[in-house]
């Protein structure tokens, strides 16, 4: 499939962009942050669900929009542009996970997610840096179920969630379980990250999980987890791209308006050249990301490497764009008043999520050296 947007995708992007400009510009997020609120606004999420965004990647037969994963990624980019505080990322990934496991069993849950009344959050990280291969949340057989002990960090959209999708390791391999928030022994506490979003850490103290709560195990869980990682990486890569693009656009506009020494600062060649290099980086990243998004829909082999490249590229480009955006705005760039600072902090956070440059470069290097 082409790496350009088709007609449907263009229409989708335009309508989502319009909606967000009207209902959730950056000032919406800023106001929420100023009130000290991190939980996504329910009304916004409701409206987004009404637009079919939560079910965007879900086949129509299952109650979704059937637009596919690439479309979901393009939506993520638009959400990035306005820093929309929503559980979109967690939701669409969980919808995909549950749908692929057994839509029959989870139909009600999927339905709830798509409609917006159910909210899930994904919990798998345990260390400070992304390390999906070192999961030590222990799941020990106990009677008709499992006992969980351990800790989970970097749980996105955790406060508003009613249930957690938890990845752990049992005696016979990987496990993915679904736990209600109020489960005995499970405590959640908020973590205040620089991006002022809904982050939570979980403690598991002898938490009992009945068999019925086990979504999958062993090889099925390995595959499901791999897919969860791929899809999440792609979505957050696109969100990074959206933030970077918006920041870049505003910076170029500023260069064309701000006057010093009797001229527009955008006429200074040093700034022109730096801006032109950012333009190139954005073009390259956009290309890589589209290729990864197409790969997800095609389910081609090696898509995990493509997605790693996408997360690497987006993280690298977005960080560079944001550093330059602040610098080129001069003093204004470091004020809280300017939105660039909000973009800067969200980019940093998203960079860490699901692996930064170093993680993905290492991952891809290891693959290439052992091929």
């Amino acid at each position, binding site marked *: 499939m*082409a*790496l*350009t947007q088709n007609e449907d995708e263009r229409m989708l992007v335009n309508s989502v962009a319009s909606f967000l400009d009207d209902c959730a510009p950056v000032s919406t997020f800023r106001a929420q942050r100023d009130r000290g609120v991190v939980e996504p606004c329910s009304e916004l999420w409701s409206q987004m669900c009404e637009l079919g965004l939560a079910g965007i990647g879900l086949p129509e037969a299952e109650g979704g929009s059937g637009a596919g994963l690439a479309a979901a990624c393009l939506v993520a980019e638009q959400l990035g542009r306005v820093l929309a505080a929503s559980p979109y990322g967690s939701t669409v990934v969980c919808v995909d996970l549950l749908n692929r496991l057994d839509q029959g069993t989870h139909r009600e849950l999927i339905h709830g997610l798509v409609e917006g009344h159910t909210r899930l959050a994904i919990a798998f990280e345990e260390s400070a840096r992304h390390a999906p291969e070192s999961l030590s949340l222990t799941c020990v057989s106990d009677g008709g179920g499992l006992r969980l002990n351990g800790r989970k960090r970097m749980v996105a959209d955790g406060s508003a969630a009613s249930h957690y999708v938890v990845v752990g390791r049992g005696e016979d391999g990987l496990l993915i379980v679904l736990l209600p928030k109020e489960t005995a022994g499970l405590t959640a506490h908020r973590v205040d990250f620089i991006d002022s979003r809904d982050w939570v850490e979980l403690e598991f103290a002898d938490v009992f999980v009945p068999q019925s709560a086990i979504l999958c195990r062993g090889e099925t869980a390995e595959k499901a987890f791999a897919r969860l990682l791929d899809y999440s990486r792609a979505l957050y890569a696109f969100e990074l791209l959206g933030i970077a693009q918006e920041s870049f656009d505003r910076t*170029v506009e500023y*260069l*064309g308006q701000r006057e010093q020494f009797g*001229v*527009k600062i*955008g*006429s200074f*060649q040093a*700034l*022109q*050249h730096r*801006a*032109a*290099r950012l*333009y*190139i980086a954005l*073009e*390259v*990243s*956009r*290309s*890589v990301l*589209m*290729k990864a998004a197409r790969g997800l829909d095609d389910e081609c082999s090696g898509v995990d490497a493509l997605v790693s*490249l996408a997360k*690497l*590229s987006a993280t690298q480009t977005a960080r560079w764009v944001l550093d330059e955006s602040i610098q080129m705005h001069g003093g204004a760039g470091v004020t809280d008043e300017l939105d660039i600072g909000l973009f800067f902090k969200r980019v940093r956070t998203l960079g860490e999520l699901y692996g930064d440059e170093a993680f993905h*470069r290492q991952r*891809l*290097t290891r693959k*290439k*050296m052992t*091929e």
Partner: protein
Amino acid sequence: MPTVETEAFRAQVRAWVEKNAPEGIRNPKGSLDVTCWGGRHYSYVSEDQKIWLDRCAEQGWTVPTWPEPYGGAGLTPEQGRIVEQEFARIGAKRPLDNHGIWMLGPALLKYGSEAQKRHFLPQIARGEIRWAQGYSEPEAGSDLANIKTRGVIDGDYFIVNGSKLWSTYAHESDWLFALVRTEPDASKHAGISFLLIDLDSPGIEVSSYELINGQNHFAQIFFDDVRVPISQVVGGRGQGWEVTRYLLQHERAMIGERAQNPQAGKNLFEVARQRQGDSIEPSLLERVADVELDRWAFDIWLERIRDQAKAGEHNPVSASALKVFGTELGKRRSEVLLSLEGADGLVNESSAADAWLSWPMSTVGGGTTEIQLNIIAKRALGLPGT
């Protein structure tokens, strides 16, 4: 999209190629793997190379998309690509390749008079005349409009004095298309004419000069009272800048559409594995990774640009952006490859040394990186001029 018509055409071409392509030009090796430049002074590397040129020229296939009266076959761009692909399929090089085809030809087709087209184009198509470009001067590199070579009217002639630099293969060429200042009262850009000059004319001296990579493909040209007929101005007096701009944009568009990853070649991960294996320094391996991952990204970017072209979306700065990224990537890659090869790479004329010594040219020639960044800043970002 292959259609019945294009596939029928392809079959025709394939049959002709099978019948007419001599053995010696199929997958030529070593010293026989040489571009056919054509021209009065050209020594064909083999009889087969000449036969191939003559047969293709007769079909109009040295310049397939040019109109028939000018030596082409009047093919559509798609048909032209099919001819190219069928040549490549049997491992044959293009029957003819030089500035006449890719630079002067398009300029004449757009700006030349009928008489000029009928005179000069068929000579190019048959490989009889080899053309060189006379643009840059000692005082006119990035600032090309700053040229000083002048042509003063004397009856039906210009008397040309001045010099040119960076003229690729001028020392092996027959004619020159050059930018000459012919309108002294006009402004800087409006005073330039696009002039066709016979390099055999009295008063012309051509000598090549060597670069750090040992190549001497470039020449300087000195003009000492050289008489050039006024009829050899293309596009009208004082229109030279417009003609050149068209050529440069045409070149850039071509680069954008046909861009290949310029460092097709060994994957550096493989080289690292073979040469160093586990003993490679982590920081060197990181540089290997950076280059190879950027190469991968570049390929994907090219794919997207091709998809954009197919969708009718044309980005006027794509070629500039590709050049900046691609050439810097090439330099980085040649640097890392040399590091991986160590002393083996320092040997003169080893392919690694050759590449490393050649890449610096790429960020300067064809519009420096700095010029390309200026273009992007102005055209894509709308940033104000100085």
